[in-house]
């Protein structure tokens, strides 16, 4: 009789291993590193003037959040500027997979600090959260065992569970972010949100705010304002995508469909409110829901496989 619980526990542990740490090719987590790394370097370079604009010593405006709350006052502007440049520099070895075990966690730490600091001036923007979380995960994952400077010339490692957990964790974090957004809507406005009036007012409000703050607005969002019923349908669809996000973890194909649907949702937010969640819009945020190693079969990416002798790209 004592054997039954032990067997059940063993079975559950094995099932958990199969789900959370499925044997995967090293190129899967490596291609995720390349995608997130390329996004990171490009994004940091494009946003460099914006990030550097927070080299401030204005104590009155300083509203520290997250890790930055540990600091009693703004960082010296020159020190912050050095940290921003160091983050940009550290993004390159992360992308290339150079001295990854040491430099990737340093990049993750710098990125976390710099982006948290840039959100510590009164307004928290939610566009970079998932990007930072992905970098944190990849920085401790064996993401440079393939397609990297560190692994150049080495044979491609065999498929292993250690290459499967990071994509699974990244997909789970992505799902959780959307579930939390859905829960917040239910908690803060109940079922009023799905009535559509709230979303319509948000679209109108968002566009007025953009205009009155001297920025670009969405003519499409404005044009659609008289169609109240449309906003009800959009509100229901967005809440369904958010609260129903966990189904994306049940099966790979469901995950792929959900990822495309959420990407379309972000496209809709951009079209109606001129608000761009760049990480999501580039689709990099949804890459963990796919077998990204298959990118190597595409001609533009096939050259990457030359990092390894006798590599086939058919996995």
């Amino acid at each position, binding site marked *: 009789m004592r054997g039954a619980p032990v067997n059940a526990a063993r079975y559950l542990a094995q099932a958990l291993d199969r789900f959370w740490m499925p044997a995967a090719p090293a190129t899967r987590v490596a291609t995720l590193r390349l995608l997130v790394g390329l996004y990171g370097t490009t994004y940091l370079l494009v946003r460099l003037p914006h990030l550097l604009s927070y080299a401030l010593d204005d104590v009155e405006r300083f509203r520290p959040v997250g890790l930055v709350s540990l600091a009693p006052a703004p960082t010296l502007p020159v020190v912050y500027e050095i940290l921003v440049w160091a983050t940009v520099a550290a993004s390159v070895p992360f992308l290339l997979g150079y001295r990854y075990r040491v430099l990737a966690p340093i990049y993750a730490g710098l990125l976390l600090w710099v982006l948290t600091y840039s959100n510590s001036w009164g307004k928290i*923007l939610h566009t970079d*959260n998932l990007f930072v979380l992905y970098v944190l995960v990849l920085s401790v994952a064996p993401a440079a065992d393939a397609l990297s400077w560190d692994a150049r010339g080495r044979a491609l490692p065999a498929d292993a569970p250690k290459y499967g957990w990071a994509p699974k964790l990244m997909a789970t974090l992505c799902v959780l972010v959307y579930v*939390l957004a859905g829960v917040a809507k239910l908690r803060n406005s109940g079922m009023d949100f799905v009535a559509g009036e709230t979303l319509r007012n948000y679209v109108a*409000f968002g566009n007025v705010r953009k205009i*009155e*703050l001297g920025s670009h607005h969405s003519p499409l969002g404005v044009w659609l304002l008289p169609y109240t019923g449309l906003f009800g349908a959009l509100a229901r669809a967005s809440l369904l995508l958010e609260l129903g996000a966990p189904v994306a973890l049940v099966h790979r194909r469901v995950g792929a469909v959900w990822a495309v649907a959420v990407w379309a949702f972000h496209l809709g937010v951009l079209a109606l409110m001129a608000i761009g969640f760049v990480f999501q819009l580039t689709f990099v945020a949804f890459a963990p829901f796919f077998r990204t190693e298959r990118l190597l079969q595409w001609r533009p990416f096939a050259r990457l496989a030359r990092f390894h002798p006798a590599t086939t790209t058919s996995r």
Partner: protein
Amino acid sequence: MYAFSALMIAAVVSPALRDPPADSFPLSDYPMFSHGRPTPRMELTHALGVRADGTRVPLPPLVSSGNREVLQSMMTIHYAVFSARRQAFCEEVAGRVAEAPELRDVRAVELATSTFDAVRYFEASPAPIRRTVHARCEVRR
């Protein structure tokens, strides 16, 4: 890896389990667009350029706050207006207006809180229902 995964998941979920839920970075309860907005009425504190003919033009973020990010700019203006340095901030904005060639027709800067009906804004008129001017300063060229 299980411990790290559990830690990351717990960290991401934790802001929603707090009472009240906590919005921070990179951990958040994602409250954007979640609060009920039953009416289109809205209030906004912003920086306006005043032309010679008395018409007003919203100043872009780089001019109004020296920041490219619209929402950060909004908070910068808000904090400045409701602090002791609102007049000094107005002068700073006017200085940036003087250096912006596309705003050469702007004669003065106003820091104001405007109340709009966001739907009526597009369907009828963008005129505010109410506007309170907190500070005004001339643009010196």
